[in-house]
């Protein structure tokens, strides 16, 4: 634990300073995104033939590949992020308050990347509005893809609202120290603010958090995203009830990993050792371990049910999992991370921040690979597996691979930009930390903190 006392100046530091490293990172991320935009432009010009995809069946390929795998991955990161943040607000997990906003921002960034993938994946993205919205009242009754678009949009709005509500408090209080050039943004964010609203906003935020916590497992990564696959009986690797929980665990592992990496980056860049403390990393790592355990447990369920006395198609789909590197390596990776995290609980000295970051990178890579395998293996082992002479060959094309760098670049850019405009650690967290450490409260903030806790107690 740091002995420094967190101050407003700490959380304003990203906004008030820029470094050479910042510009380098900005340039690299911008280049990655730019390169993919060019590649996407070429794809729009030539058609999706530039990908490694083909038709499944006599087309000898897979019709969904890296684009869809990465789409699920980003959506998972996004959904996990907002669940994390909502849990902090709802369950009074104050310890994680300093990273709550990072998690919320990660949700917006992740959803943006996922939404971008939807467009990139389409044959005719120009028709999204006319064809999808125009028939929405009909298709929403049937199409899991329309459920997806609906729920993702709803979550984007919900998260943005959530963020906008909590930012008003911070921006009003820090306004004098915020750069004038963004005044229009701050004016917009704090439109009609009065201190009387603080209490109401806190309650609203609590209710939105409740809605998110309830909706996330029901509708999001435990719902419509897995249902894209789980409702299709032709794919034994996809079909069935386990995909909801399985997807949710993947979302949470990858989101926690994402938050760990983000937190580490910000802590290092802005000397936030006393704000994003080692304690937070230890805690996040434990949660990561817990969700890794659930992830592996649900994989085990599928391996067992698919191996003991399976139907022919289910047996083939499961058999592949025992041998295919795209499945075996990620599973072993997650297992290794779980082992490490367990070891740190037995012997706390094993924990270092770097190791936590490595564990996070392993989990993020593993979940991406597992998602890719999940999508591809559906087409490799369908129930109607007769097309053996035209099997589902696939390797992501250069353009598809560049989309990964592009979307990671997009998310990094998002944080680089946002960090210059609003505080990515909320003022409440600073106030809270100071309160915990016995430092003096600023008088005006005290009643606000009281009211923040009220609903939590009720909960």
């Amino acid at each position, binding site marked *: 634990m740091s002995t420094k006392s967190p101050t407003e100046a700490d959380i304003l530091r990203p906004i008030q300073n820029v470094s050479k490293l910042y510009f380098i990172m900005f340039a690299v991320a911008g280049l990655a995104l730019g390169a993919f935009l060019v590649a996407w432009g070429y794809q729009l010009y030539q058609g999706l033939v530039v*990908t490694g995809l083909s038709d499944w*069946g006599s087309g000898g390929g897979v019709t969904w590949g890296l684009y869809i795998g990465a789409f699920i991955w980003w959506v998972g990161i996004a959904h996990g992020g907002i669940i994390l943040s909502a849990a902090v607000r709802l369950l009074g997990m104050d310890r994680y308050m300093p990273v709550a906003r990072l998690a919320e921002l990660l949700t917006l960034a992740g959803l943006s990347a996922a939404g971008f993938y939807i467009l990139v994946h389409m*044959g005719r993205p120009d028709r999204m509005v006319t064809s999808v919205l125009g*028939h929405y009242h009909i298709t929403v009754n049937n199409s899991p893809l329309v459920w997806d678009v609906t729920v993702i949009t709803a979550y984007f709005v919900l998260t943005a609202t959530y963020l906008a509500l909590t930012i008003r408090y911070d921006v009003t209080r820090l306004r004098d120290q915020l750069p004038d050039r963004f005044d229009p943004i701050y004016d917009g964010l704090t439109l009609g603010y009065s201190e009387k609203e603080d209490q109401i906003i806190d309650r609203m935020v609590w209710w939105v958090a409740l809605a998110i916590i309830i909706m996330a497992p029901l509708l999001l990564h435990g719902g419509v995203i897995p249902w894209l696959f789980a409702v299709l009986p032709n794919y034994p690797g996809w079909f069935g009830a386990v995909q909801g929980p399985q997807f949710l665990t993947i979302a949470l592992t990858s989101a926690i990993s994402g938050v760990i990496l983000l937190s580490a980056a910000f802590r290092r860049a802005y000397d936030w050792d006393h704000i994003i403390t080692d304690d937070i990393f230890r805690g996040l790592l434990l949660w990561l371990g817990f969700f890794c355990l659930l992830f592996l447990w649900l994989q085990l369920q599928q391996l067992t049910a698919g191996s003991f006395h399976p139907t022919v198609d289910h047996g083939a789909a499961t058999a592949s999992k025992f041998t295919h590197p795209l499945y075996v390596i990620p599973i072993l990776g997650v297992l290794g991370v779980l082992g490490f995290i367990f070891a740190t609980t037995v012997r706390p000295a094993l924990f270092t921040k770097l190791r936590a970051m490595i564990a996070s990178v392993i989990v993020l890579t593993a979940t991406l690979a597992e998602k890719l395998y999940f999508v591809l293996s559906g087409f490799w082992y369908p129930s109607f597996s*007769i097309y*053996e*002479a035209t099997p589902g060959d*696939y390797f992501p*094309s250069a353009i598809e691979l560049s989309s990964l760098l592009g979307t990671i670049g997009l998310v990094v850019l998002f944080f680089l930009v946002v960090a210059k405009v609003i505080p990515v650690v909320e003022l409440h967290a600073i106030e809270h930390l100071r309160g915990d450490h016995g430092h003096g409260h600023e008088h005006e903030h005290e009643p606000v903190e009281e009211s923040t806790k009220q609903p939590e107690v009720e909960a």
Partner: protein
Amino acid sequence: MSADDESFHPLGEEWENDLEGMLDDTEYDTDLGMAMAEDAMRVTRGELSEADFHEKYHEDVLEEFGEDNRPTQEAYEKAQEEAKGTVGRMLSRFDGDGEEPRRDVMKKMGAGAAAVGLGAWATVDDGEQQAAAAQDDEDDESGAPEGGEGDVQWGMAIDLERCDGCLSCVTACSSENNLDQGVNWMYVLEFEDPGASSSTSRNRLVRPCQHCTDAPCEKVCPTTARHTRDSDGLVLTDYDVCIGCRYCQVACPYGVNYFQWDEPDISTDEIAEFHEDMDGDHMTTDDGYGSERWVDSRAPRGVMSKCTMCPTRQDGQMGDEMVGTTACEEACPPDAIQFGNMHDESSDPQTYAANPARGRTLAQINPPSADELEEELEGADDDLESVLEAADLDEEELGLMIAVQITGGDEMGDGDGDVADLENDVTEALAAIESHGLGLANQEVLAELNLADEPDLDEPADGDEEGVDVDEEEENGDDNDDDEDEDEENGDDEDDNDDDDNGFEPDEEAAQFLLEQFAGTPASNFKLLEEQGTNPNIIYLGNEPGPQAEQTEPTGSGVNYEDISYERADGESVEAVDNRKDVLDEGTVGDAGVSL
């Protein structure tokens, strides 16, 4: 409505049974209620006028309920004036006059009709209804076959044991629809099936789109681009609406979809130009509701395509004679593909699937025309031998023709497809022979053709020698034949005498046996992946691929894909490809040449 196979109600059989149960609970006539309900549905589809509906049941309703407070004569006249527009209002009368709760009125007034009306009418607005009615009229004009209930569901019976793997259907389809290389809307493959018990025929699958009644591709489509035409049950893609998400391809368990990954090789202008003489451009056609939709021929870039079952043919764009045909069916040399209305029991696919041996025989025997026969038979004696000699037929051919007629029964020639045409040819040919003087219902003659028992032994032995000949020719069938004969002789002694006097009653079993001996019976009669609840509209005859069935390498069909080519509207000849990935890889940026 295309969505229900057996039930008349769009909500299906279960709902219908519920209605029936509800009616059973009342003191009123269930049959009347259900009949009214069924006709009420026909009113919603525009097949029956509201006024006719009223009239049809007026007396029954009076008898059953003692009153008919359905729309009065005045409303009936008004309804006529306003054409279809008042159906909803009429049905609202079933809501009662305000004194009785709606449910009671429903029970009393033919609950089926009311319930159906309230459910179904609400979904059909006036415009659609008129369009639907107009569509029906069009169908009538264009000669589209009508099913028992007047609804059409195009589909096929595919005889996998007759298919010789020549891939003519593949090239015909690709040519007609101007498909890119590797886009095999029609695909033929041969497979090994390690899990199957000893198979009696070749493992081959002919795989067009199954045009499922409960099409999963349509269900998952986020845009309604993939849709089922109400008028004839074809599952089509609106190329102007599809966004290319490919979820339909993912949801389809059969793998029949082909995405247009790049710019198609042939332009729409070239396609339209090629079809200039046609009553349409072979691309857009009426959707049954008065608007043109682009659903036929190759897809434009970025959207999904698949076998369409030739909607522009079905809509009469290529002429009346092309209605009820598909390119693949026409091209198939052994007539392994039978296309027609699956809701019509007398259609080609249904007749063929109901009795494959007979269907196969019909496709193979090629009966002489009646005129030809009359000419040839002139001056010939009227005994069997002379007739056969003069007409240049052998006993087997004549026997098969008669067997076709016997097994055809009263429905012979009832349909309006190729099968019915062939049946009529047979009927006419046989009539010509009979009119020449050879009694084809005569037991002696039939016995010689293996279609009846031998007449009593004390009859003149004239035909006996010939009978022996026949037995020798048909050695395979001897044992079975004798068994059947014994069975029948047990109880038919008395009848035999009558037969001799009054004309012989044809032996349907023997006829069927003859057909099966000639054409064989398929290993099985199945629909593909029926367990997935798709309700496909293709009936297969032959070996059903089991769960372990695997396509053999290379394609293993009678002819290899690389050996065939097809011509497109721009005159270009395209070599067929069985694995489209080989073609698409050329466009992949940074193709690593490896696979995950």
